[in-house]
C-alpha cells in the first residue's frame, strides 16, 4: 500500500499503559486533527531503552520493533511514526534507526497537534477556567521543543491561565528517580511553585511525571491533570483518570482485578498504588 501522509502509527510506549485514558485521548486528538491512527505499544513494541544491562536483548527488541513499523509502512501505508514517550523518541532517533534500516519518518504527537492547531482551535469551545502550572523538564528539547509546543496548545484553551513551572533536569521524572533525592526535590519544587503562583492545577506533559504527581491530586486544592486531558476538557469531553483515583485510595473494580488475575494485581500493582506520595511542603505547612 502506498504511504499516505495522513495514515500514522501512534507509538505510545510501555508505561503509558498505566494511563489508558491518555492513550485514548491522544488517539482522539490525532483523529480530530485529521489523521487515520493505528496505535501500538507495550512490551511487543519495546524500544529497549530500559534494558541497558542486556545489550543483546535490547538490540533484538529494537530490531523487532523497527521491523514491525517497517511492515506498517509498507503493508498499511503508515509511513509516519508518531511518538508520545521521549525515551522512545530519542532511542528511535539516536540508537534504533542507526542500527536498523527504518522505512518511516518520526514525529512527536505535539508536532502534529501544533501543526493542526487552526483545525483544532475551533473545537476548543468549553472554557477551562483554571490557573495551570506546567510541570517541565529540560531534556527532550534536544529533539522536540516539547515545553513550548504544549504551552502553545494550552494557550488556545479559553479561560485557562498558564504558568510555566521550573524547568527541571532530566527528560521526565522516571529518569530523575534513579538519582537519590533528586525526584523528591523536583516534585517539591513543582508543588511549591504551584502554591506560590496560586495555581489550582498542575499539568503534566509525560506519563512518568503524571505517575509521580498523581498521589498529590487534591492536596492544597490543586488538581493534577495531563495536557491532553485539559485539551479534551476544552472540547467538552469528560475526562476520567483511573490512575489518579487509584493512587488516592480508590481501586479497580473487582471484575477488572479478576481479569488481570488477583495474584498479579496484589503483587505487581497494589504496592505501587499504595506507596506513600513523595513528601512536599503544603501551603502554610512545613514539609
Amino acid at each position, binding site marked *: 500500500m502506498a504511504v499516505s501522509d495522513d495514515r500514522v502509527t501512534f507509538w505510545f510506549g510501555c508505561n503509558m499503559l498505566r494511563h489508558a485514558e491518555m492513550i485514548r485521548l491522544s488517539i482522539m486528538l490525532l483523529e480530530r486533527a485529521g489523521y487515520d491512527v493505528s496505535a501500538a505499544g507495550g512490551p511487543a513494541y519495546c524500544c529497549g531503552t530500559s534494558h541497558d544491562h542486556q545489550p543483546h536483548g535490547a538490540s533484538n527488541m529494537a530490531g523487532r520493533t523497527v521491523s514491525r513499523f517497517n511492515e506498517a509502512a509498507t503493508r498499511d501505508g503508515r509511513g509516519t511514526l508518531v511518538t508520545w514517550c521521549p525515551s522512545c523518541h530519542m532511542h528511535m532517533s539516536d540508537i534504533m534507526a542507526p542500527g536498523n534500516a527504518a522505512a518511516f519518518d518520526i514525529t512527536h504527537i505535539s508536532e502534529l497537534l501544533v501543526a493542526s492547531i487552526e483545525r483544532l482551535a475551533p473545537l476548543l469551545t468549553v472554557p477551562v477556567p483554571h490557573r495551570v502550572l506546567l510541570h517541565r523538564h529540560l531534556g527532550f528539547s*534536544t529533539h522536540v521543543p516539547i515545553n513550548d509546543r504544549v504551552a502553545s496548545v494550552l494557550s488556545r484553551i479559553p479561560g485557562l491561565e498558564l504558568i510555566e513551572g521550573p524547568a527541571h533536569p532530566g527528560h521526565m521524572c522516571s529518569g530523575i528517580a534513579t538519582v537519590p533525592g*533528586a525526584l523528591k526535590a523536583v516534585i517539591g519544587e513543582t508543588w511549591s511553585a504551584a502554591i506560590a503562583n496560586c495555581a489550582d492545577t498542575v499539568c503534566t506533559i509525560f506519563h512518568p511525571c503524571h505517575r509521580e504527581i498523581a498521589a498529590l491530586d487534591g492536596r492544597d486544592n490543586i488538581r493534577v491533570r495531563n495536557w491532553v486531558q485539559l485539551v479534551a476538557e476544552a472540547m467538552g469531553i469528560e475526562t476520567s483518570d483511573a490512575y489518579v483515583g487509584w493512587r488516592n485510595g480508590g481501586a479497580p473494580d473487582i471484575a477488572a482485578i479478576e481479569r488481570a488475575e488477583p495474584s498479579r494485581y496484589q503483587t505487581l500493582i497494589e504496592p505501587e498504588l499504595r506507596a506513600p506520595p513523595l513528601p512536599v511542603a503544603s501551603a502554610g505547612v512545613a514539609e
Partner: protein
Amino acid sequence: MTRLPRARAATTEAFLEQTGPELAALCTECGACFNACPMVDDVNLRGADPKIVTSGLRQLASGAAAPEETVAWVGACTKSGQCVDACPQKAAGLDAMLLVRIAKQRAINETRQLPAKQDPSYFPRIKTFARLQLSDEELEKWL
C-alpha cells in the same frame, strides 16, 4: 516530521559498539559537557576536575575502566541534554549525550563499574496494568 538517520550498522548492538570509539575520538576532554550538566551537584561532583572526568568518559566509551568520578557522573545521567549544545565538537558530529549513554552502558556491561539494575517485574507489571484497563479489542489491536 523528521527523517530518521540512515542505518550505519546491522543492529543497534553493532552500532553502539562502533560508535563509542568514534565519538570518543572526537572528544577533546575539554569538560564543557560536565560543566553544563545539571546533575553534577546531585552526586556531589562539583569540585571534580572536568578534564579528568571527561578523559574517563572517553576511556569508558572505548570499553576501558574509568576514574570513579566519571563512573558516578555517567551513572547519574538523566538525559537533560544540556551537554549536547555545550560541546564545542557538536559541529564535528559529537553527540555528547549519546557518548555519555554509551559510556554508561559500558560501565554496566564491560568494566562492571556500575551495577546492572534489573527489574524482572517490569513487563509483567505493564501487562497487568493493560489488562486492568483495556478492552479485549484494544488488547488485540494495540499490543
